[in-house]
């Protein structure tokens, strides 16, 4: 099995970045930013997850097939969430009593 052996330095750098991002997200959550709180928190979470997936799970060096499946999983999650929420968000868009 010949795989790239990644240096401890790289892993340690990613680890440090993840900790820093965690501290950041906790700090920002204490500020009053209204809707931005949610956006910042999710953005930081996405960055952290991306670091774990690319570096710790080594998707950086994975085959195209693996990358395709990772992408498909996320895409299908998006289908579930977007279509589900589209119902709730679009209720009441039509006028009149009894219309949904």
């Amino acid at each position, binding site marked *: *099995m010949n*795989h790239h*052996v*990644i240096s*401890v330095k790289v*892993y*340690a750098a*990613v*680890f440090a970045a*993840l*900790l820093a991002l*965690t501290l950041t*997200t*906790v700090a920002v*959550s*204490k*500020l*009053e*930013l*209204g809707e931005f*709180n*949610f956006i910042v*928190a*999710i953005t*930081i*979470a996405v960055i*952290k*997850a991306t670091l*774990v*997936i690319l*570096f*710790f*799970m080594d998707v950086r060096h*994975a*085959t195209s*097939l*693996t990358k395709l*499946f*990772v992408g*498909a*999983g*996320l895409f*299908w*999650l998006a289908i*579930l*969430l977007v279509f*589900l*929420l589209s119902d*709730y*968000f679009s209720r009441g868009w039509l006028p009149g009593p009894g219309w949904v």
Partner: protein
Amino acid sequence: MADSETPLAVHEPELRHHFDDSAQQFESSVLGMWVFLVTEVLFFGGMFGAYTVYRNLYPEAFASTSHFMNVTIGAINTAVLIFSSFTMVLSVRSAQLGQKKALIIFLILTLILGCVFLGFKYVEYHEKWVDHHVPGPGFRYEDTRYVHQAQILFFLYFAMTGMHAIHMIVGAGLLTALIVMAARNRFSAAWYTPVEMIGLYWHFVDVVWIFLFPLLYLIGHTK
């Protein structure tokens, strides 16, 4: 043209009869584990969907319940889990380099950190139990305007973190099995597939927490 009686079997450790060579076997394992992780994404995804729906339906109740989330424990647990992912990649790296002792040490560290996480989880759950925030007949909520909605939100909190914790417990079991296998010299630089596969699983469970933490603990306080 490969013949199934290939002498490769002699040189390739742990090669199973239906595979032509180790590379095919390893790639199959990796793809298989990723397909499984995709199922897990959808599995947790259903609960994230339910959470999002209720958070949007009941924003005031959500803001109210967010005060009862223990951000300190949540943050510590996040750090613990990230640290355990770090020790996990180091254990895979040790396996790649054939370093048996380092492999075992890093696996044990990962296991310990996982248990620390579960320990803090227990503390948190106990706190909720004492506060009567566990859904069921004993549920009580401080702000009577939101009793019912709070119960639904706490239900989702327990369902999501509980399902995550179950996955951690399974992971702990798998790590234990790996430690035993490593101690018995099952792994070498030529074959360490289970270490890498369980590593993928462990990182996935970390990724789920990376999303659970902000959604359950960090947002909603400020309104």
